């Protein structure tokens, strides 16, 4: 098998990497010595069949799961995430498939949910008053930066938004707070064609600001549209990292399912 489909290793050091990651659940081995590298400024797609260990891999990187063996490095420093909060504090933001928005609350409140800002002075320290004008202004800015001009009113409830707009709010939240890495778990799974296109455009916008993105997706056309490199996970390990410009979708799926072997 030729090497040409394998993606060239980007220059520089990985921003986020995992080495020899192992995760077992009783007698089931979800991760069997899996490696992972994300380089600065790239969109790395992670694909794999059900049970290939995609979500276990991502959970180890986002702090939702602690690996049994192996280690994770952020900026070439070893990190030991005990929970998603640790990863978030280190600059890794994850947009979960379930979106993690509170539908009845407005957009600005959702963008700042769990990280509310208080007013300065005694209003904030004594009366714990939220800085609503400031949060609304910055939430609007975060949405504008991702080109979501259709959201006119930052005070409207998230439940009045379409699926794509809700996804946009989640992604905007991640983009606003993530300082190193953004992880998107199946961001287009529940969306229509037009809305998917908007989300893919947001991914490109995030990349153009220099922020690396990990995209977990089942949707091959979407993966091939935005990914710089594709990490293929199979049977608990990384079997290949391919270049979407040098491989066909059917070959990528063949590697994913084991019908074809890379290298």
């Amino acid at each position, binding site marked *: 098998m030729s090497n040409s489909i394998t993606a060239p290793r980007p220059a520089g050091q990985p921003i986020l990497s995992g080495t020899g990651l192992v995760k077992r659940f009783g007698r089931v081995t979800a991760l069997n010595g899996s490696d992972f590298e994300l380089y600065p400024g790239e969109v790395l797609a992670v694909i794999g069949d059900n049970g290939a260990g995609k979500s276990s891999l991502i959970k180890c990187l986002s702090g939702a799961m602690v690996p049994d063996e192996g280690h994770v490095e952020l900026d070439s420093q070893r990190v030991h995430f005990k929970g998603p909060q640790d990863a978030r504090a280190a600059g890794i933001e994850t947009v979960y498939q379930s979106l993690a928005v509170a539908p009845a609350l407005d957009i600005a409140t959702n963008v700042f949910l769990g990280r509310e800002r208080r007013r300065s002075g005694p209003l904030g320290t004594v*009366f714990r008053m939220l800085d609503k004008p400031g949060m609304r202004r910055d939430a609007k800015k975060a949405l504008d930066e991702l080109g979501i001009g259709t959201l006119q009113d930052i005070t409207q409830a998230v439940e009045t938004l379409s699926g794509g707009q809700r996804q946009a709010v989640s992604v905007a939240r991640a983009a606003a707070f993530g300082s190193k890495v953004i992880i998107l778990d199946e961001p287009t799974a529940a969306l229509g064609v037009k809305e998917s296109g908007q989300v893919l455009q947001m991914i490109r916008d995030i990349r153009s600001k220099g922020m690396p993105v990990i995209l977990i997706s089942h949707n091959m056309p979407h993966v091939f549209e935005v990914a710089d490199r594709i990490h293929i996970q199979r049977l608990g390990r990384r079997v290949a990292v391919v270049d979407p410009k040098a491989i066909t979708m059917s070959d990528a799926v063949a590697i994913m399912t084991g019908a074809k072997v890379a290298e």
Partner: protein
Amino acid sequence: MSDAVSDAPDAPAPSAADSFSHRSGTFAGVQRLLHRYPTISPAAVLLVATMVFAFFSDGKLIKAPTLGIILQQTAVLAALAIGQTLIVITAGVDLAVGTGMVLTHLVVAKVFSEWGVPAVVALLIGLVVGLSLGAFHGFLITKIGLPPFITTLGTFYIFQSLGLTYSQARTIGKADLGDKAATKGYDGLLLWTGKEITFGARRTGFTITVGVILVFLMYLAFTYVLNNTAWGSHVYATGDDLEAARLAGINVNRVLVSVYMVAGALYAFGAWIQLGRSLSASSNAGDGQINLDTITAVVIGGTSLFGGRGRFSGTLIGALVVSVFRLGLTLSGVSAYWQTFAIGSLILIAVSLDQWIRKVAK
């Protein structure tokens, strides 16, 4: 309710209108309006109920003394409905709010009359008791994982039994609750909430109590907290979608425990208002209605039993609606049996309306 529907068809659509461009017509407009301003419907119910009962009672209901009595009768219910609102916003329910308040007010009355502690200390002991009852709810719900309904159904009986045992079902009267050093016009701190304030002449004027004012101030304070603090946002988010709130980094168990403890502290507040209202302490306080009446007030006020949405202004109006219904039906000469029927129907209409309004989101 039907009046609210026919009054507001031409209201301007909220700016979310573009997301609803597939929806049109008067009904959808009203639905959107009620969704955006949920206090409109309880306010309309209160207005209509007041006008209807004013008519059937030959104007007796809207005389100044009667209006004062309505506010006084609403005070305890409204005080306890604050905690109930918070709990319902987290998608829970507190069936023990009435017996919790009764137990707390018996403790306050007994330690004051029998131990001879100062009134302030008796109230602080009541606060500790209330907080403990609330913390017990929070523990059962977050650590044992019991549903709030079951938790508070169990403690409903437990608090009731403790109250009866502790008081031996005896009533503690005004003579034992007043301050020994009380001067004329002031019966001491425990009964201060019952002190009357009259506007106008004694017989024809408008009379409220200190308790009414304190309850109103409490509503203002809690409205601020819910709308302007991070804790308030977290309470909404927890009730809206527990898992989403957790993923957003909110410690949902801590939020839930804090909500039940705040509700417990409000048992003590309600106990104080109750002491002033009845000028006595008895295991019969609240007439056994207060438990369910708080839920009625919350539901009529537009707070969703499914969690995540609700306002204190609505609950306050809902509590007034309950009082206006009870007194209005009495003054209109309707039998007490049918009063209960009317309240029941009102709940069903309120929840149906809530379901309809929620469809905006779908």
